[in-house]
């Protein structure tokens, strides 16, 4: 086993552990911390794949902004920090069966796939190439994404403003 493989297994294991913790821990605050572990491990996997820019963005956006926002949200919500919430309801056997089925399908698909290798070297430019791609072939999704963010912002304002009135 090479060092890369060892690091990958470590990071992958941490990501799975974090994800499991997020859905099974009874305390919402602990769940959020487990989620940060998972997101951070994924950033590590990006570094391993030599996608440094993606790793930095992952840490900045997901760990830095989104996870912190969720933590603030939890802490600012009354009566939620210390309380244990139920993680199971009556439908858990059904949910388990569906999840296990999905896992089996994905596992078979991912293991048996003949992964094609790119015929060209990955771009080295990083940010510059990314910028060109966003203004060229991916201009459409980039522009629609700005509308998407606008909608999300307007939506949050509509719901929050009315609730206060």
């Amino acid at each position, binding site marked *: 086993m090479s060092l890369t493989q060892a690091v990958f297994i470590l990071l992958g294991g941490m990501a799975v552990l974090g994800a499991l913790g997020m859905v099974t821990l009874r305390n919402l605050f602990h769940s959020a911390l487990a989620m940060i572990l998972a997101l951070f491990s994924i950033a590590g996997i990006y570094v391993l794949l030599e996608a440094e820019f993606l790793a930095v963005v992952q840490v900045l956006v997901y760990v830095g902004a989104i996870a912190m926002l969720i933590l603030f949200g939890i802490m600012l919500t009354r009566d939620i920090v210390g309380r244990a919430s139920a993680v199971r309801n009556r439908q858990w056997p059904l949910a388990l069966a569906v999840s296990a089925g999905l896992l089996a*399908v*994905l596992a*078979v*698909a*991912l293991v*048996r*796939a*003949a*992964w*094609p290798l*790119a015929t060209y070297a990955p771009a080295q430019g990083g940010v510059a190439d990314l910028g*060109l791609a966003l*203004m*060229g*072939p*991916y*201009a*459409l*999704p980039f522009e*629609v*994404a700005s*509308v*998407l963010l*606008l*909608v*999300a912002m*307007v*939506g949050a304002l*509509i*719901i929050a403003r*009315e*609730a206060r009135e």
Partner: protein
Amino acid sequence: MLPTLSVLNLNGAVPQIAVAGAGMLIMLIDALFHRGSRRWAAYLALLGLAVALARVVESGASAETILDGALARDGLGMAFALVLIVAAALSVLVAMDYLRREEHERAEYYALILFATAGGLAMAMANDLVAVFIGLETLSISLYVLSAFFTGDAASREAALKYLLLGAFASAFFLYGIALLYGASGTTRLVEMGTAIRLAGTQADPLLWGGVALIIVGVGFKLALVPFHSWAPDVYQGAPTSVTAFMSVASKVAAFAALVRLLVVVLAPAAPLTSALLALLAVLTMTVGNILALAQDEVKRLLAYSSIAQAGYILVAAVAGEVGAAAVLFYLLGYAFTNLGAFAVVLAWSRRGEGRLPFSDLAGLGFRRPWTAAALSLFLLSLTGMPLTVGFVGKLYLFGAAVQAGWTWLAIVAVLNSVVSAFYYLRLVVIMYMREAEMPLALQRAGLALGVALAVCAAGVILLGLVPGVALDWARQAVAVVLS
């Protein structure tokens, strides 16, 4: 080399830009000079949609891409875009008087309808799965917010929360499917993806199958196909009625546009598997939708289950792949008029501050409101598939496409389902005309815009039913020009 604006050719993206631009303009004007009535916002929205419609009609179909290959200007995309824009314009008309009556008249409503439409347009015309996904999210998030638009109303809030949670879940499936298809083909561009899949051959590429299955789950949620339908009745009932009207049509048009393009352009080599999967979903969706609709006693919820069943009928033609594309398009055009019209009547008759319209409220309205009742009867007959309405021609064409592609048993199941559906649709007509009201409903004044919307919907249902030739030819020619 830096891309130049001529490479990007923004001229072809005018429909999207006009619609989204009008939405932003509404928000800007509202923030700077908002005083009194918000009727101007509705007119501005209609203007933006009119510009987009004119552009779609005028520029016509050509099998070329713009924005560096991301947006297809082919007949398929343009035709679905046209249906979507018409549906959005009717939704704006339907909402104008309703929002004022319910004291929720705000400019953001129209802006969000426009943003949702822009997302749907991106889905219908995109040649790139990433763009399809972002369009889908823009449409969905606008609809989540619109569902919660009556924020003082607990049912509206609950509907939005259910829709948001389950919708986010479905988006994850769709995104995972995109990732697997990217793994199988090495590209996100639909045309190149189709080429890669054709070259690779379809024998047992597990990534392809996995990706297809997950994408169908994601799209199936948007279309409220059984077994991904459980959100639909609650959300349709809880959301403001004008939003339900828009949602029941726009998200179906956009999702079917993306599904048809995927089936024709990318998954044609995988047709045996996708057809079998979709046929199974179609049978489940039609049957479960119709059976549950039989048990309803409230019009809005009945129409929710009816919309589920209708998606099943449309799926029957989607099973036929390329053969059925024109039928899907024609039926959706008719469905836009029919379903929006039916919801418009619900909205006109329901009590103030209450979205529900129990069957008992309909009693006697056939004679108290002869024109509106006649319109509702027309829409219900069309949903059933009675001759001389667009529903009949549309279903004939849908099921005909299935037979033509060798899915005769599926067409028979669909016809049997239509017979079952006649029971609950016609029951409403019977209640309106044959039963005396025990407690006469206090009716609101309908308003001019709603009247115009109803007249347009009724005219569309009758004209497309009596002289379907022109529209059928248009649909056939449109889907013949597909970028591939």
